[in-house]
């Protein structure tokens, strides 16, 4: 083997080992706690305030929760990176973003849905796409993120399989109430459960 071919082969080995060994937690446990609490609170407030005559707004408040959670999560990831003396935009973060962005964009495109009782469908698709985005990063994520991704994917798939029943409920009750319940039950409760399971233990290095 020529020295150039050997250098190429060694660089390939280094790259593949580094990618395999990179473990990146894209969702910090405290960030999930903030997101989970905000989601549960918003869904409870929306469910108590909305009525068939006066359906509450759906998209805007949930985008606000997304913004708050994203700011909190990135702030916590930045603090952790500073504490470890690593760059904020680490190779792990770049890998995670590259893997997650297509599915997250898919979720964003769901905002184009304009259908009667469409909020429940949008919420179900957000759950599904978020699950897919987490699963896309699963080969370099800790196990808890993989489980979170599986839970969201299963919930999203179940919601879509039962979408005709959900539409019927939405017609019987009020059209945004079901959607708020879906968001609170998944983004709220799943993230709270994840935060409890993935909370950093003192014995960990």
């Amino acid at each position, binding site marked *: 083997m020529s020295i150039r071919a050997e250098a190429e082969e*060694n*660089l390939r*080995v*280094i790259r593949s080992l580094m990618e*395999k060994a*990179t473990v990146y937690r894209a969702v910090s446990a405290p960030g999930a706690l903030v997101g989970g609490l905000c989601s549960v609170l918003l869904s409870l407030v929306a469910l108590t305030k909305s009525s068939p005559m006066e359906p509450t707004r759906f998209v805007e408040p949930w985008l606000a929760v997304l913004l708050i959670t994203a700011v909190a999560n990135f702030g916590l990831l930045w603090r952790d990176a500073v504490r470890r003396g690593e760059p904020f935009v680490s190779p792990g973060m770049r890998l995670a973003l590259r893997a997650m962005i297509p599915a997250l964009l898919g979720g964003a495109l769901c905002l184009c849905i304009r259908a009667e009782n469409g909020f429940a469908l949008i919420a179900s698709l957000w759950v599904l796409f978020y699950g897919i985005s987490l699963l896309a990063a699963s080969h370099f994520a800790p196990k808890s993120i993989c489980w979170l991704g599986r839970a969201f994917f299963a919930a999203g798939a179940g919601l879509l399989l039962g979408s005709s029943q959900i539409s019927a409920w939405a017609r019987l009750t009020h059209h945004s109430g079901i959607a708020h319940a879906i968001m609170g039950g998944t983004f709220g409760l799943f993230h709270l459960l994840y935060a409890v399971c993935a909370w950093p233990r003192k014995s960990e*290095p």
Partner: protein
Amino acid sequence: MFDFEKLDKLIHEKGRLGIMTLLATRPRWPFQDLKSELKMSDGNLITHLRTLHDAGLVAVTKEVLDRPQTSYALTARGRKAFGDYLSVLEQILKAGRK
């Protein structure tokens, strides 16, 4: 003409290159994790780690948590040597393109 003597022969060996690469990704690696990631035998891994440790590229920490555990990390010298080795590989590739 590229000077191939610049290549650090200590790191260039496949097994030790794998060890140095993994050690560069995290602050420390327990022995068992290195073993399972690199799929090396205990004896082989210990021999390579000892060589790297004797050269001052790798630091060893022995501690007792719930059970005795030996962890390995790159020293500052090891991190620099690995960075230099990567630069040399890049230079070889660049020289080959000319």
